[in-house]
């Protein structure tokens, strides 16, 4: 939202009702191995800020490599309401639909026109609004909006008003990277590698974030035993996956305990979101504490099993 004072009419809630605006649920997808995979958009409310976490069953979407496809159909039954005295442009004016996508965190915005229409051109029925957003441009968050804009000047006396944005018909915020908290898992497809391994790349566990750049559990989907992990059932976690996660956490905890002893883990004020703070939080509730590797291993396995069983 901006705080500009508008010298022209804008699209408000009343007008949105008057024009008979309807839309189909939006679809957000990407293509992997020739198959289109869809993000879950079923619980998006209407009229509120819509937010979708770009994560699907196989957890394989990677915005540095994959295109993101947005599509929906929209209808404007009473499009004539947009023209004339009480409309947005003059009776003989022209209005357009456009898609804008932007990300403040990625410092970029792009806008593409979809179509133009006049008062005489008939209602807009099941108009496909579709856009493919290329990979390796965006990070953190991305907002996609469907806009209504002035193709012709709002009034003839204001030729510079072409391109004026009247408002947004739809807006969805896509969360590309969550704010942390989940276990960083990276997937590989290499028949020559083991089923799983841990990578610890941090320099200082007290500072470096609990993020895949610094620590990760690596899963090899092409290993013969990978089927037992039941990755296609995620977010449901299979018994074998629980074992793998527990072992990975144990390895990471041991490495952190080489740098910070168990007393420091309890009392030190580590950076929020750091690896040490995550392990400190996790081991705090592990029965048997961190006094010996065997107790730690047992405690982690028990804790992981309980967490996934809710």
């Amino acid at each position, binding site marked *: 939202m901006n705080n500009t004072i508008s010298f022209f009419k804008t699209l408000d809630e009343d007008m949105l009702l008057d024009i008979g605006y309807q839309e189909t649920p939006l679809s957000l997808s990407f293509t992997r191995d020739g198959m289109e995979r869809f993000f879950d958009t079923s619980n998006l409310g209407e009229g509120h800020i819509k937010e979708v976490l770009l994560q699907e069953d196989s957890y394989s979407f990677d915005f540095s490599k994959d295109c993101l496809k947005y599509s929906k159909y929209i209808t404007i039954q009473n499009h004539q309401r947009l023209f004339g005295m009480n409309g947005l442009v003059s009776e003989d004016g022209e209005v357009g639909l456009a898609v804008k996508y932007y990300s403040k965190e990625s410092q970029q915005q792009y806008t593409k026109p979809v179509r133009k229409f006049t008062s005489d051109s008939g209602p807009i029925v099941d108009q496909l609004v579709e856009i493919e957003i290329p990979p390796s*441009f965006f990070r953190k968050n991305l907002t996609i909006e469907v806009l209504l804009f002035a193709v012709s000047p709002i009034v003839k006396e204001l030729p510079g008003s072409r391109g004026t944005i009247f408002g947004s018909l739809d807006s969805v915020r896509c969360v590309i990277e969550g704010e942390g908290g989940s276990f960083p898992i990276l997937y590989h497809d290499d028949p020559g590698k083991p089923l799983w391994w841990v990578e610890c790349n941090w320099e200082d566990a007290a500072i470096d974030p609990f993020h895949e750049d610094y620590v990760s559990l690596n899963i090899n989907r092409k290993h013969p035993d990978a089927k037992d992990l039941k990755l296609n059932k995620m977010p449901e976690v299979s018994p074998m996956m629980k074992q793998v996660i527990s072992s990975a956490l144990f390895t990471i905890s041991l490495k952190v305990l080489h740098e910070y002893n168990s007393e420091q883990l309890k009392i030190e004020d580590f950076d929020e979101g750091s690896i040490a703070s995550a392990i400190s939080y996790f081991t705090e509730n592990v029965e048997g504490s961190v006094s010996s590797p065997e107790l730690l291993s047992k405690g982690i396995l028990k804790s992981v099993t309980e967490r996934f069983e809710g």
Partner: protein
Amino acid sequence: MWKEMSRKEADKRFEEMVNNGFEPKLRKNQFDAPLRDHLIAMHNEILEEFSLNEESLNKKTYLYDLQFALRLYNLLISDDFQMSVQSASSDGVWRYISLNIIPDIVHTRWGSNDNRFYKQPRRIWVKTLWWYIFLSWQGSVRETESILRSNTTDDLVQLVERAGANGYRVSLSREIMKYYGQIPSDSDLRSRNLFRKVMKLNTAKTSTLEPELIDGGIEAYVRDLFENFTKELQRQ
């Protein structure tokens, strides 16, 4: 490949350098050392080609910045380093380059100014150089250099520090830089803060309209934007 450095980590690293000298701190991998070697070679090449030394470099800052920026951008987007716009929008990546890969070069250019190393995200020197070229890019180093040659440090700042609420409009920025680059270096227009005025007007206009949606496209929009001032200045 691209490592990010958190703000807290950067604070710690900067303090360490203030006490012990602005020396690089490289990871033992196949990435950091080659990156540094290339950047150091580029720095030396510019000093030699333009007969600069560390003192005169700070008197011809735009000349040095432009030359280093063009080489930096071209190197980082090359197949060897593959920096995407996604990576380039991460302050953490620039903090790491600034503080660990080439702290000595940043120090030569900016002394101990922590804002230019990492503290002010919009002013991290290496980051501003990359984005200046990305937002001005005309398809090749040679074409881009030709439109940027007559600019000043203020022009660079006016472009890079006006990201807008939702980020840069990349095609629009490139068109503005192309148009401005075609104004001869000896033209009186350049000395009258033309670029600053154009960028201010653009910021005001884009708060209500989208240049890419105008009939005639961004070329027509940019021409009109400049003509608001060039016609008036030419009349005076």
